[in-house]
């Protein structure tokens, strides 16, 4: 056995992700290393055997998520990690996990793209891929951490949500957060709130759920119940069906299980200096720290600026942002892409507040200076 982990360590965001996953109960990881997510596979390979888990390097990204789904069906909390091009390859099986209701955490450490792009540079270009990357209507939970400690905490939360709602959860990191090193407290499992899936099967029907509930109870493969898992719409027994009523109800239920529990742990957002702000900045993930610094500096210069940060990016905290926007003259969206969250923000603000944009796609990080310049320009 390995020596006991120190509680406080200098870690990369990617390493903190692995420690958070282990604390949440991850015991299986399958991956195909890709910059800037490689350290997640590396640390998983070292740490999983130390806690009785299994690490598998697969032949590609598709096989990686497939292996992780298989392990999850067998009752083991599982994760896979990748970046841009690999995330594209995982999309089909993310849809499969959604309809087959298999808990899994997929980490995408975003890098500059499309294709091989700038593998070592920051980007937030996969925001819409996380939402719409797999085909068909489907709900999505995507979470964006902004620091090394936050990565630890949010990875724990990602596993909890995957288990509670039997759904894939996307941990949407970026190169800035994945590769930076900071002090991190590795909180042991007995001090954390940990959720495990309900495996008490109702009436021997794997996809049956209790009165007033939306999430089926399923036993693990190998625990005695034989049942069918398919990507086709299926009935309570798990067998494919063409019955339009069942298909409609099932599609509704899968969407609703996320919508209805949105306020029971799924939604999360952070506000900084928003109380009296008349200029708001929307940001997430790696840009958060530049925005915080810009807010502090701009406040010293006399601007009433605040920060609104969706921690859970999907589903988006729409109502919360609209409520805040009523007090704002200006709303600035800051992100490392051509305006993916901007599109969402414009859609929900509907022209009531002036929405402005800072987007950067050349592979360098947005700086506080650039944000302050934008604040000043708009108020000249």
């Amino acid at each position, binding site marked *: 056995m390995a020596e006991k982990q120190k509680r406080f360590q*200098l870690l990369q965001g990617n390493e903190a992700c692995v420690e958070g996953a282990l604390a949440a109960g991850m015991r299986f990881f399958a991956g195909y290393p890709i910059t800037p997510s490689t350290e997640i596979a590396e640390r998983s390979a070292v740490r999983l055997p130390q806690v009785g888990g299994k690490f598998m390097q697969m032949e590609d990204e598709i096989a990686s998520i497939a292996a992780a789904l298989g392990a999850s069906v067998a009752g083991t909390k599982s994760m896979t990690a990748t970046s841009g091009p690999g995330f594209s390859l995982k999309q089909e099986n993310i849809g499969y996990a959604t309809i087959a209701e298999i808990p899994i955490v997929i980490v995408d450490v975003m890098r500059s793209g499309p294709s091989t792009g700038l593998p070592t540079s920051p980007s937030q270009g996969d925001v819409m891929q996380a939402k719409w990357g797999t085909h068909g209507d489907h709900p999505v939970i995507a979470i964006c951490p902004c620091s090394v400690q936050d990565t630890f905490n949010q990875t724990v939360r990602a596993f909890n949500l995957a288990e509670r709602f039997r759904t894939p959860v996307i941990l949407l990191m970026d190169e800035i957060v994945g590769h*930076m090193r900071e002090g991190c407290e590795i909180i042991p499992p007995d001090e954390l709130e940990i959720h495990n899936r309900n495996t008490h099967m109702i009436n021997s029907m794997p996809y049956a759920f209790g009165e007033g509930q939306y999430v089926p109870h399923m036993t693990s493969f190998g625990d005695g119940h034989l049942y069918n898992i398919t990507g086709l719409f299926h009935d309570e027994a798990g067998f494919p069906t063409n019955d339009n009523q069942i298909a409609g109800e099932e599609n509704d239920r899968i969407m609703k299980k996320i919508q209805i529990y949105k306020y029971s742990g799924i939604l999360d957002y952070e506000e900084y200096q928003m109380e009296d702000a008349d200029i708001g900045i929307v940001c997430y993930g790696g840009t958060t*720290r530049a925005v915080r610094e810009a807010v502090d500096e701009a406040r010293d210069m006399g601007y009433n600026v605040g920060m609104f940060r969706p921690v859970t990016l999907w589903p988006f905290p729409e109502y919360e942002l609209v409520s805040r926007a009523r007090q704002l003259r200006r709303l600035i969206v800051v992100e490392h892409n051509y305006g993916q969250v901007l599109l969402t923000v414009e859609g929900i603000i509907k022209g009531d507040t002036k929405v402005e944009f800072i987007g950067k796609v050349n592979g360098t990080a947005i*700086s506080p200076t650039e944000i302050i310049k934008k604040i000043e320009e708009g108020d000249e």
Partner: protein
Amino acid sequence: MAKEQLRFTGSGGQGVILGTIIMAEAAFLDGKQVVQSQSYGPEARGGLCKAETIVDDKPINYTKIETPTFLLSLSQNSFDKFSKKLAPGAAIIVDDSVRVPERISQKHEVLQLPIIQSAIDVIGKKVSANIIACGAVNEALHLASQKSMEEAVLAHIPRGTEALNLKAVRLGAKLVQDRRKTE
């Protein structure tokens, strides 16, 4: 302490990223707030490399550096590229193979040290230049205690190279002490 913003630069393979990790680890062991980050290209060796460590008593917001308070360069082209924007009064340590133009040496304290040559002649391993540099940087800036500095070095090197790397980090400190004595 005032917020220190260290930028280490060199060619890929010279170990400048590891250098900033060791500096961050040493300050972290001393209870400081730290953020370490790097930027590099997809090449395994030879590309320009820039790595940064921020050390402060207070929580650190922005994780990158806009104007470094300290610059280390182990190669001429990395110095030329990354020496353009420095904080007023920023200190500089370069390998003595790097030429520093007068417009920079007039405004900043510059220590030109035989880092790479000492790695070859004294330690017998060119790859230990980054550890020598760490020792020199810490002696110049007093970011971390000697104990934490050595613990940080030992935490990030391959097993079996402990004696050699401790010798390297102490040699770095001595290069700075000797230089300051002669000035």
